[in-house]
């Protein structure tokens, strides 16, 4: 049951309440500490564990990945596509390795599943583009990370 409160006309204007709110806003505006920054001129320091743009780690110039397919298996967004191949110096390697990055939800499960310490999420988080990018093997092989 809805009970209608009995208010006077003056109370209906909420005059004092509005005024109190205004005072708080103005106090914060002139005297409060600033919480926003002027991005991109200014940048924040992010955690080292930030999960950003992917790359495949290499040791002595050879990719760590052996195309075991654990990352496409675990990936909840189904955005990793690998084709395995064989070559002289390596029994099994990823002939193609593609990440459909717009589908990625940056959960980092691929990194966690990888038994070879190969797929990594770097701390790079500026990766917007004006087209639909597919990260291919060449792009992912750039060592852009610190992990």
């Amino acid at each position: 049951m809805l009970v209608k409160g009995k208010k006077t006309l003056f109370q209906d204007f909420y005059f004092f309440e509005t005024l109190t709110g205004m005072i708080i806003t103005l106090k914060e505006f002139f005297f409060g500490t600033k919480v926003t920054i002027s991005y991109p001129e200014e940048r924040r320091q992010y955690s080292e564990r930030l999960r950003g743009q992917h790359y495949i780690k290499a040791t002595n110039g050879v990719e760590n990945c052996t195309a075991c397919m654990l990352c496409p298996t675990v990936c909840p967004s189904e955005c990793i596509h690998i084709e395995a191949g064989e070559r002289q110096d390596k029994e099994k390697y990823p002939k193609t390795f593609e990440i459909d990055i717009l589908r990625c939800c940056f959960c980092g499960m691929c990194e966690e599943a990888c038994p070879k310490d190969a797929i990594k999420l770097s701390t790079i988080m500026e990766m917007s583009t004006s087209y639909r990018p597919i990260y291919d093997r060449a792009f992912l092989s750039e060592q852009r990370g610190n992990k």
Partner: protein
Amino acid sequence: MPKCVIDGREVEFAPGENLVEVAKRAGVNIPVFCYHPGLSVVAQCRMCAVEIEKMPKLQTACSTAATEGMAVKTQSERAIKNQKSIMEFLLLNHPLDCPICDKSGECDLQDQSYDYGSPYSRMTEEKRTYIDLDMGPVIVKNMNRCIHCTRCIRYGEQIAGIHEMVAIRRGNDTEITTIDGKPLQTAYAGNYADICPTGSLTLKDFRFKKRVWLLKRTATVCEGCARGCAMEAHAENNIVYRCVARENLEVNQYWLCDEGRFNFHYLHETDRVVEPAISSASGLVITEWKAAVDAAKATLKGRKALALIGSDLTQEEAKDIQEFIGKSFPGAPLLHFGTPGIHSAREDADEDKILKRKSKTSNLHGFEKLGLKGFESVPSGTEAVIVFRGGRAMLPKLPTLPTVGVGVFKKQEADKFATVLPGAAFAEKSGTIVNFQGREQKLVRAILPPGKSKALSEILMIWSHA
């Protein structure tokens, strides 16, 4: 029936049955490596050792027959200790290369290491390694992964009927190899990969194609010959990646021949006709279903037709075709074809002592049951031909008459046809086939027909309504 007790559960058994099988029926899993129900028992991996009351030592379950009143403990302290030690022993030299191994995901060694082994290795010495050996076109060997269970050696000797694998040297240096390092000879080599409990012997054909856990498994029947072996088709995203044997003690036990195992490749051949097509001056051209069916009708209209039906089609399809021909082309002869030189079930016989039959299509015997006769020569006065085919039956030499093909054809085969209406092959449809024993078996659809191909019933429906 006599009874024994396994882990406190009472089970009946047939005299002579070994403990592994009896335990399986009681719902108790005894881990095994060297034991395989289709091969002789050698009891050499010792993984299956269990404790039996009144026996002082652990006994290998695979080589011990159950007896009346026997009390078996598979989980006693000693049995578990043994399992742990055997796992450690078998894994001493085993490389940690599951990420690149094709067996990974269906590997007995991997599963049992997970269930019974220890997650740590105490081995600090260098692991032994072997140089790889070429095993011919079917099998890739990686000796580093081998656990010397000798299943492969026994399989060759006892099933494939050719003693080609041997173990050379002894102890830690044992190597499983072919005699003189020759490539494998048998036409049943794919089974080596199926029975090897490790990734030591794997299929060349399937190498690195897919991880096994991503595959959807469909229990179906092989269409390679009149035996109709039980088979599993493994597919993902509408592509069949491999076929493996399924157990059927009455037909194929646990085995498949290589011809049947790799037969599926024609499904994905690039030169398969997967869109309705009609002939033109420059060969076949793709068109719409309606136009193609109209063209097919025009080809056969007013002509004395001969209907040929491949004995690789199912019973259901054959009945549909019988009805269709009776209605649309009354009086036209309907004859089956499949293997050159085999015109009736009587001419079908064993091709070798293992599985293969002479008839290279799956349903010859079913067609006989339906009263269909074999095609030998073109009846005189024939003016047009309509051919139904599932993809496996060998096309007979046809005279140059206007021809309509319904089913699965390669571009070269259908080149001279007036019209092709693309149909479904064995993995793309469900139905019944009858093997040489008269056993009715079920084909089960694993993938969808590619491109614009349609199931036969659908094609016939378009035909009668268009």
